[in-house]
C-alpha cells in the first residue's frame, strides 16, 4: 500500500513544477514583471506599499496600451522577510514564471541574497531603496539613493545651520555602518574634531531608548550646537522618537536628521512632538510638481484611500519602472541583455519636477531634498540641492573604494574598476 502512495507523492512534486513551467510558456503573449517584496514578516510594514505601487504602475501602463503591443502582467510572490527565500523566489520568478525584470527587495541583505541568482540567470533587478553603496552589478539598477545622494547633502545642510557636534546613531547593520564611516571621514575632512563625534549602534527593533537619549542629551549639553544623524532602521524609530519627545529633546535644541524615516513611517507615529526634526530624501510627498500631483491622485484612486501617503522608495519604483519601459521601447525587446544596453542614458521625469537619468554605473541622478517634519505627518522642504546629484557606487571617502569606478558601457563594462591598477575585480567574465 505504501510503496504505491510513495511513488505517487514522489511524482507530484516534479509534475507540479513542470506544469507551472508549461503554464509560463502558454501565457507568453504578456510581458511578465516580477514583484519581489515581503508581504509578511518584519519587512511587510515597508514593502507591502511597494508591491501596491508596482501593481498600480503596471495597471496604468496597461491602460496606456501596454508595452510593445503586449499587456504587462505582474507576478507577485511573498519572500516573507526571509533572506534565503528571497533568493529562492527570485530564481522561481525568472526560471519558472519567466519574468523579464524584477522590481523588489528592501533590505541590503535581501538584495545581497538575490544578487548571485540574478547574475547567474542574467536577469534584471530594480532596487528602490537607499543603501550603503559599494556595489554595482551588471544586472541590478539602483534607483534609491547612494550615500552621496542622501547623507552628505544632509550633513552639509546641518553644517550651514551651525551644527558643530554630531551624534551618528544607527542600527547595527551594514547600511548605518557604512554611512557613518563615510560621514565620519567627511566630517573630519571638514574640520570636526574626533571628540565632537559620538557614534552609537543599537540592535534591530531596539525598543528601550532611555539611556541612549539621555546620553545624547548629555552630549548635546556642552554648549555647541549638536545634531543627531540617524540611520536607525524601521521599527526602532517609533520608540526612539517617543523617547526623544518624552525627554524633551526638541528640534530647536538637538535636531535629528533621519535617512530611513519617511511619510509612511510618520503615519505610524504621533508627530506632534517631532515637529522640526528632519529627514533627507530624494522625494517628499509635499514636493510641488504636476507629475507629483498626478501620481498622488493616481495613488489615492488606486488605493481608494485619500489619506494614504507616498514616499521616496515609491518614487524610486516610479522612476525605475518608467526607465525600464523606455529602455524596452528603445531596444524593441524585453530581453535583459538588450535592456541593459538600452537603459543607460535613458531619462524619465521624476516626481520633483525634473528628469532623472540612468547612469553608466547603474545608479540614477536625483535631487536631494531636506525636509522638516510637520505636525500633519508631512515634510516641509527646507533645502534642495541646486542640481541633480549622480549616485556614486563607490564612495570617495572609504579607503577601500576611493579608486574604484563603475561603468557598464562597452568597452569598460565593469562594476568595480580600479583606476590606479587598471584592473577590474569581482567579475566573472
Amino acid at each position, binding site marked *: 500500500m505504501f510503496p504505491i502512495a510513495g511513488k505517487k507523492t514522489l511524482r507530484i512534486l516534479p509534475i507540479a513544477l513542470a506544469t507551472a513551467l508549461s503554464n509560463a510558456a502558454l501565457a507568453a503573449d504578456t510581458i511578465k514583471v516580477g514583484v519581489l517584496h515581503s508581504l509578511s514578516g518584519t519587512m511587510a510594514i515597508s514593502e507591502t506599499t511597494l508591491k501596491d505601487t508596482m501593481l498600480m504602475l503596471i495597471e496604468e501602463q496597461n491602460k496606456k496600451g501596454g508595452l510593445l503591443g503586449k499587456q504587462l502582467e505582474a507576478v507577485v510572490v511573498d519572500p516573507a522577510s526571509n533572506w534565503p527565500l528571497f533568493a529562492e523566489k527570485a530564481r522561481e520568478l525568472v526560471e519558472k514564471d519567466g519574468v523579464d525584470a524584477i522590481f523588489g527587495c528592501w533590505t541590503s541583505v535581501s538584495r545581497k541574497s538575490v544578487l548571485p541568482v540574478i547574475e547567474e540567470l542574467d536577469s534584471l533587478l530594480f532596487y528602490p531603496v537607499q543603501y550603503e553603496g559599494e556595489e554595482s552589478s551588471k544586472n541590478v539598477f539602483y534607483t534609491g539613493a547612494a550615500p552621496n545622494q542622501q547623507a552628505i547633502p544632509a550633513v552639509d545642510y546641518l553644517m550651514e545651520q551651525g551644527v558643530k557636534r554630531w551624534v551618528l546613531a544607527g542600527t547595527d547593520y551594514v547600511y548605518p555602518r557604512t554611512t557613518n*564611516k563615510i560621514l565620519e571621514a567627511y566630517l573630519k575632512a571638514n574640520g570636526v574634531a574626533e571628540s565632537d563625534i559620538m557614534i552609537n549602534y543599537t540592535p534591530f527593533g531596539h525598543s528601550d531608548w532611555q539611556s541612549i537619549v539621555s546620553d545624547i542629551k548629555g552630549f548635546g549639553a556642552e554648549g555647541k550646537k549638536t545634531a543627531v544623524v540617524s540611520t536607525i532602521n524601521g521599527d526602532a524609530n517609533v520608540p526612539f522618537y517617543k523617547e526623544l519627545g518624552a525627554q524633551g529633546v526638541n528640534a530647536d535644541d538637538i535636531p535629528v536628521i533621519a535617512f530611513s524615516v519617511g511619510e509612511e513611517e510618520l503615519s505610524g507615529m504621533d508627530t506632534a512632538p517631532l515637529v522640526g526634526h528632519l529627514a533627507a530624501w530624494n522625494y517628499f510627498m509635499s514636493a510641488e510638481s504636476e507629475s507629483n500631483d498626478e501620481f498622488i491622485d493616481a495613488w489615492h484612486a488606486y488605493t481608494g484611500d485619500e489619506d494614504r501617503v507616498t514616499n521616496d522608495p515609491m518614487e524610486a519604483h516610479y522612476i525605475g519602472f518608467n526607465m525600464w519601459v523606455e529602455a524596452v521601447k528603445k531596444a524593441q525587446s524585453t530581453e535583459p541583455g538588450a535592456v541593459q544596453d538600452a537603459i543607460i542614458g535613458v531619462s524619465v521625469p521624476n516626481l520633483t519636477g525634473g528628469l532623472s537619468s540612468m547612469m553608466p554605473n547603474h545608479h540614477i541622478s536625483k535631487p536631494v531634498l531636506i525636509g522638516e517634519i510637520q505636525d500633519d505627518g508631512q515634510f516641509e522642504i527646507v533645502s534642495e540641492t541646486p542640481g541633480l546629484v549622480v549616485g556614486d557606487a563607490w564612495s570617495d571617502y572609504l579607503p577601500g573604494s576611493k579608486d574604484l569606478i563603475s561603468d557598464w558601457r562597452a568597452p569598460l563594462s565593469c562594476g568595480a574598476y580600479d583606476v590606479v591598477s587598471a584592473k577590474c*575585480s569581482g567579475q566573472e567574465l
Partner: protein
Amino acid sequence: MSMNKFVVVGLIAALVFVPLLNMLPETHALHVPTYAVSLMGKYLALAMLAVAVDLVWGYLGILTLGHGAFFALGGYAMGMYLMRQIGDRGVYGDPLLPDFMVFLDWSELPWFWLGFDQFWFAALMVILVPGVVAFVFGLLAFRSRVTGVYLSIITQALTYALMLAFYRNEMGFGGNNGLTDFKDILGFSLQSPDTKVALFMATVVALLLTLWMCHSVVQSRAGRLCVAIRDAEARSRFAGYRVEHIKLWVFTLSAAIAGVAGALYVPQVGIINPNEFSPINSIEVVIWVAIGGRATLFGAVVGAVAINYAKSYLTVEFPEIWLFALGSLFVLVTLFLPKGIAGFLKRKEALA
C-alpha cells in the same frame, strides 16, 4: 514501520531519479529543472535538522527551542569556507579578506577565520563547533538537572543570545548581511547545475546516513534508556543509570547532526545570516516534527518537507493570506492529528 520504508524508498528514489530526470531535455514533461533540485535539497537539509530535533525531543523528552543555533553554527562554518574560496574574486579583489572586512576597514583576517580555506578543516568545524557548544551547554544544564520548560527556555535564550551576537558587526561574521555571494565549493562552481545536483545527492545521502544512525541509536540499549528517561527520569536515575551522561551524548550528537544539516543548507540557498539563529526558526522546526509525528524520526522528514513545500507553494499562490493557511494547519494538526502524519498513517493502517 511502513512510514520508515516510505521515507527510505522515497529518498533512494529521489537519489536515483531526480538527477536522471534533471538530465532529460527541458521540453520533456518529466524534466526536473535544476532550481527544483536545489529546492528539494534545501527541504532535505531542513529535514535533517528536524530529525536531529526529533532525536532529542521525541526520544529524550528535551523540548529544544534552540536547535536552530547548531544548524546556523554549522552553516556559518561552511559559509566561512565558501567565503575563503572566493579568494581575490570579491569586488575589492583582496586575496585574503572577504569583502565585508575590506568594507569595514579590517586589515587582517581574525584568528577564528584561519584554517577555513581548507575544506577538511571547515568540515571538521561543522561538526565540532555545534558539538562543543552543545556539550558545554548540556554539561552545565543536565548536571544541575534543569528540565522541562526551564530547559526549553534556556535553549531559546542560547539561540537568542547567539543571534544578537552574530548581528554585531564587530563579531567578524558579516553582521546582518551574513555571508553570501559564494563562488565555488571544492573547485566546482556553485552556479553549475552539476554541482547543484551533486549537492542535492550529498544531502540525500547525508539524510539517509543520519536516519540510519539515529535509528540505530534509538533501537539500541541507549535508545531504550532514552525513552525511559523521557517517560520517568527520576525512576531511571534511581535504577542506577547515569541519566546525565546519556542525555549529554545524545544532545551533542543531535547538535552535530544539526550542524551538518546547516553546512549542506548554506551552499544550496547561497546565504547564511544571523536570522537563522532566530528563536522563531527553532520553534518552527519543533512544529515540523510535531506535524510529521514525534518520536518517529522518519515522520520528522515528512513533516519538514511537507511544511516547507507548503510554504514555498503558498507564498506564490496566496501571497497575501498564506499565514492564515499555515497557522490554521498548525492548529488543526494539533487538534485532530495529535500524533502527526505518522500517527495518522499508522491508524489508517491499523484500520485497513
